[in-house]
Structures are given as structure tokens and as C-alpha cells.
């Protein structure tokens, strides 16, 4: 079972401690590291690094899968700058992100505080994160059915109450908000659990001190809980903003970008350009822009995060 290559340095290590032995061991470790990294490196190079470079290159080409890509310089980017559908997709994506992340963060924070104050139950935690484990596609379809104009439970209820039906997915002004709220339902428990973990990490004596000082509930939340939670909150915001920018599945199975282009979010537009119009060069350029946008957002939020950490140490 013992491999000779390793036996050698081990044996010499026992007899004489020379620098040569050390380098011998390091070399064996380097060799082992290379072997251990072979499969992961194949995956990394073939499916992350190479497609990233190829995607960058394709963004400067005209490419429809059938003919070889032809280099056209910055033409795709110039066309995007003047593409009203692109600007609209950016607008509706932002609309989605603001509603989704806004509502979700506030509600999750409330839920996390509720859990911390009123329950230790693992079952409750399991139940509230259940929606997060269900596929986007399933969640989208269940809510699409619940909110269906003709037969869905929500509209049937509104109808019997004499309130009039609402075209949640069919109304241009409501569709993106509806999709944002559907995904709030899916992510609420997950986000609340992340924040709950942050609350757990706040030392108990801080609260006791505030209590001794006679601070009320709201004041404790605002002056103790919130500032101490800010690093976790910032982390959660980075993750949720970057995630919700890439909204796709829900749109794909419900509205398909409509009505008109009220829900044609950036990811969906990239998909349509690439696979419905076979415009891979243009779609790649859109994806490059999305990547730069996300990197910028993460960078800004990361700065926020760092500022908060120093805040905590005070």
C-alpha cells in the first residue's frame, strides 16, 4: 500500500534533517497537488475560463452558429447603445431588483427578529425555507395558477368579495411587480435564515446592557440590532442583488417577456437574442455588459461591507 516516492523522504526525514529533504517533500506535494487538480482544472479551463474568453471574443463578432464568426469590432456594443429594447430591459430588471430585494430584505429582517424572539424550533426554520428548495419553475407555475385571471383562487376570491379581478401577469403595469413578489415568497425564508444566523451572533450582553439602560424595543432594534447586523445585511444584499439581476426562469415559464416587453429582463433578452434570433455575437456583448454591471455592483457593495466591519469593531 505504501508508495515508494513518499517512503523515501519520510525515511530520510527520520535519519538526517537536511534542506534537501525538505525540497524533496515539497516536490512530492507539488506532484500530488497537480494530480489532485487534474479533473477540476479540466472543468475550470473548458467550462469557465475558455467560454469566458470565447464569450468576450464573440461579443466583437457577428455570429449565428451556422457560419464562422466574423470580426466586426465594436459594432455590437454601438448597436446596443442605440437599442431601445436593451434600455427597456435594463429598466424593467431594475424595477424587479428594487421590488424584489426591497420587500424581501425588510420582510426577512422582520421574520428573523420574530424567530429570534419567539421560537427555537427547527421545524419552523425548515418550513420557512422550504419554498427556496422548490424549483423556480414550479414556484412560478403554482403562483401563475393561483393568480390566474379566470379560475385562480386569488381572483375567484376577489370576485366573490365584489372587488373586481386583477390581471396580475397580464397587466403591463403589474406583471413585473407580481413576478418580483412571487420570488419574494420563494426567497423570504432563506434570507430570513441568513439574517437569523447574524442575529444569533450578536452577543447577549449587548442586549442586557441596553435593557439596563431602559431602552425600548424599537430603540434596541434601531440602535443595537441593526448596526451590529450590518455586515451580515450587506453580505445578504450583495448575494440577493446579484442573484435577482439574473432573473430568468420565472419569466420564461409565465409571461415570456410580455405583456409587450414589460417583463423582458436583461437575462431573458440575452436568451432571446441568442436562441430565438441566433444572434450570438450581439447576445455575447449584452452578457459582457451584464457581467461588468454585476461586477461594479458587487464592488460597490463590497466597499459597504468593509466599512461595516470596521463599524462593528468599535
Amino acid at each position, binding site marked *: 500500500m505504501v508508495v515508494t516516492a*513518499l517512503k523515501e523522504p*519520510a525515511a530520510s*526525514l527520520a535519519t538526517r534533517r537536511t534542506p534537501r529533504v525538505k525540497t524533496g517533500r*515539497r516536490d*512530492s*506535494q507539488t506532484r*500530488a*497537488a497537480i494530480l*489532485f487538480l487534474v*479533473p*477540476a*482544472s*479540466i*472543468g*475550470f479551463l473548458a*467550462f*469557465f475560463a475558455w*467560454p*469566458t474568453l*470565447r464569450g468576450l471574443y464573440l461579443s466583437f463578432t457577428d455570429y449565428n452558429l451556422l457560419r464562422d464568426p466574423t470580426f466586426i469590432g465594436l459594432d455590437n456594443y454601438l448597436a446596443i447603445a442605440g437599442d431601445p429594447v436593451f434600455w427597456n430591459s435594463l429598466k424593467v430588471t431594475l424595477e424587479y431588483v428594487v421590488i424584489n430585494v426591497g420587500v424581501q430584505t425588510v420582510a426577512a429582517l422582520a421574520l428573523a427578529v*420574530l*424567530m429570534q424572539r*419567539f421560537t427555537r424550533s*427547527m421545524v*419552523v426554520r*425548515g418550513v420557512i*425555507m*422550504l*419554498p427556496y*428548495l*422548490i*424549483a423556480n419553475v*414550479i414556484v412560478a*407555475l*403554482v*403562483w401563475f*395558477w393561483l393568480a*390566474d385571471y379566470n379560475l385562480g*383562487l386569488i381572483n375567484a376570491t376577489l370576485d366573490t368579495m365584489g372587488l373586481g379581478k386583477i390581471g396580475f401577469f397580464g397587466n403591463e403595469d403589474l406583471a413585473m411587480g407580481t413576478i418580483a413578489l412571487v420570488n419574494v*415568497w420563494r426567497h423570504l425564508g*432563506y434570507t430570513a*435564515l*441568513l*439574517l437569523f*444566523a447574524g*442575529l*444569533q*451572533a*450578536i452577543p*447577549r450582553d449587548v*442586549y442586557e446592557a441596553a435593557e439596563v439602560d431602559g431602552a425600548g424595543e424599537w430603540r434596541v432594534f434601531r440602535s443595537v440590532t441593526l448596526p451590529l447586523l450590518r455586515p*451580515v445585511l450587506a453580505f445578504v444584499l450583495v448575494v440577493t442583488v446579484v442573484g435577482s439581476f439574473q432573473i*430568468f*426562469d420565472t419569466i420564461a*415559464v409565465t409571461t415570456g417577456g410580455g405583456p409587450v416587453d414589460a417583463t423582458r429582463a436583461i437575462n431573458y433578452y440575452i436568451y432571446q437574442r*441568442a436562441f430565438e434570433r441566433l444572434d*450570438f455575437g450581439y447576445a455575447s456583448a449584452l452578457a459582457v455588459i451584464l*457581467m461588468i454591471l*454585476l461586477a461594479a455592483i*458587487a464592488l460597490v457593495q463590497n466597499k459597504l461591507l468593509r466599512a461595516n466591519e470596521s463599524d462593528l469593531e468599535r
Partner: protein
Amino acid sequence: MAIIAFKAGKRPSLSAKRASNADDAALAKSKVSLFFGRLALVIVILITLFPIYWMFRTAFSNNRAMFSEPLSLLPVDFTFGPLQRVLGLATTEEALAEGGSGASINFGQYMLNSVLACTLITVLQVTFSSMAAYAFALLNWKGRDKVFAIFLIALMVPGIFTLLPNFILVKDLGLLNTILGIALPAMFMTPFAIFFLRQFFLGVNRSIIEAAVIDGANHWRIFSRIVVPLAWPQIITLGILQFIQYWNDYLWPFLVGQSETSKLLTVGLGIFKSQTPQGNPDWAGLMAGALVAAVPIFILMLVFGRKIVGSIQSSGVK
């Protein structure tokens, strides 16, 4: 002996975690706030569970009869028809009689496809990522941290960006409409998996490894006989998380797997929905399909709930 040393080294951090969980039980004191707090929690749980219940309710309803009773909280004219319909067990006449479209759909096959693809991805990805994590966490070699940083950069690249070239690659390899084509981009590694495991491998007591080296064990043996068993709970947790993620994935399998033998459950659902007649949709069948796709997740949650919740909570503190 080595294993005992590691466990003893790890125990303090575990018990410290438990203590911090217990001591901040800042449970409310007054009965009024207790009542309203619990009430709010009950409402949240109801809002969480009701749509899932509605999926069950609809999946066991007769699609034709459902039109007359949209408000019924119980299944309308209870039937297994929709489930039989989506699993390809009902005849066209039976399907039409209960308000199905009569088109042939086979979620049983899609279930098999999903199980195959997700198992293939998860087993290989976790194995290869463990090996990589071992190299990054427990071996000393020149440039290690730089290479690790490069691997992590891949986390920043949005999925849709690599998806376009990956599609071209899989197409050029002739792997469209195959399970292998669906699995290929994710089955070697993901930066997340390596990152996740490296965290735990870093906690392995190095003196055990040095001792094993002196005893003449090679690195494969140290990896497979010492490190993997020690980190087994975390490896299983990662496996469950990744399995669920790929089970729920939609866009990539939708682009790559359109044939009957490569269509995953989520893809089958999307296609079922888009093909259902606009004026007279088969809601019961659609919800039955959704149920088939969701039930494995419910089972995983029942069996591994504590592990899953724990992994998400700890990712928040990091």
C-alpha cells in the same frame, strides 16, 4: 488515534456554536407580545405552506369539475387522474374525460432523466472538488493561493455569460439532447464546491497528516482514508445542496436537453405549460407535474432538513 485527535480538536468549536445558539434565547416575556409574535409566525407559516397545499389540492382535482368550484379548499371531485395523466398511465380518452389535453406526456421518464443527470453531476462534482480542495487546503506548493484565487474569480462570472459559449461547445461535441451534455459543464467542479470544502479541510489537524506521511501513506491514501471520512458530513451536505440546485435548474437543461430521453422535470413542466391550450388549460395536470417534480425535494427535506437548514445558517455567519 489520529482521528480522535482531530475530533477532540474540533469539539470546542462545535460546543461553542451550540452555546451561542442557546444563550441568546431572548424570548419575549410579556404574554401579549408572546401572543402577537406567535400569531405573526403562524401567519408567515400559513403563507409559506398554502401555495404548496394548493398544488396538492389541484393535482388531485378533476380538471373539468374544478371550473365550477374555484374556491373549494379540498380537491374537487378527488381523483388520481392528473397524476396518471402526467405519468403517461392514462389513455387519451381518460385524459380528455377529466379535462386533460390528451397530448402524451411522460413525467416518469423525465424523473428518470433528472435523477440520472443530477446524480452524475453531484457525484463527480463533489468527488473532483474534494480532490481540488485537498490540494488547496492541505498541500504545500508554489502558487497555490494564486491558483485558488483564479478559480474563485469564476464565481463572479454570471451564468448566462459562460452559457452561450458552453452551448456552442456542447453542440460542437455532438452532445445536444444527451444527459452527458447536460451534466458536462458542472460535473468537473464548481468554484463554490471547492470553496465550501476547502473551508472544512483547512480545519483538519495537520499533525495527523504529517504523522501519516511519516508512516508512509501517500496522499491519495491520506485523502481517501483520513480527510474524506473526517469531512464526510460536510461532503454529504454539499452533495445534497448541489443535487437540489441541479434538480431545480432550468435554462441550461432546457437549451441542451429537448428530447424525450434528455428532458429534465423542470423542462418538461415548462413545455407542458407552453403547450396547454390557452382557453382551457389543464391546471390539474400542470400541478400534478409540478408535484412529481417537487416531491423528491420534500423527501430530501424530511430526511436531511436539519443538515440543510444548518448549512444555510452557517453560510450566513461566514
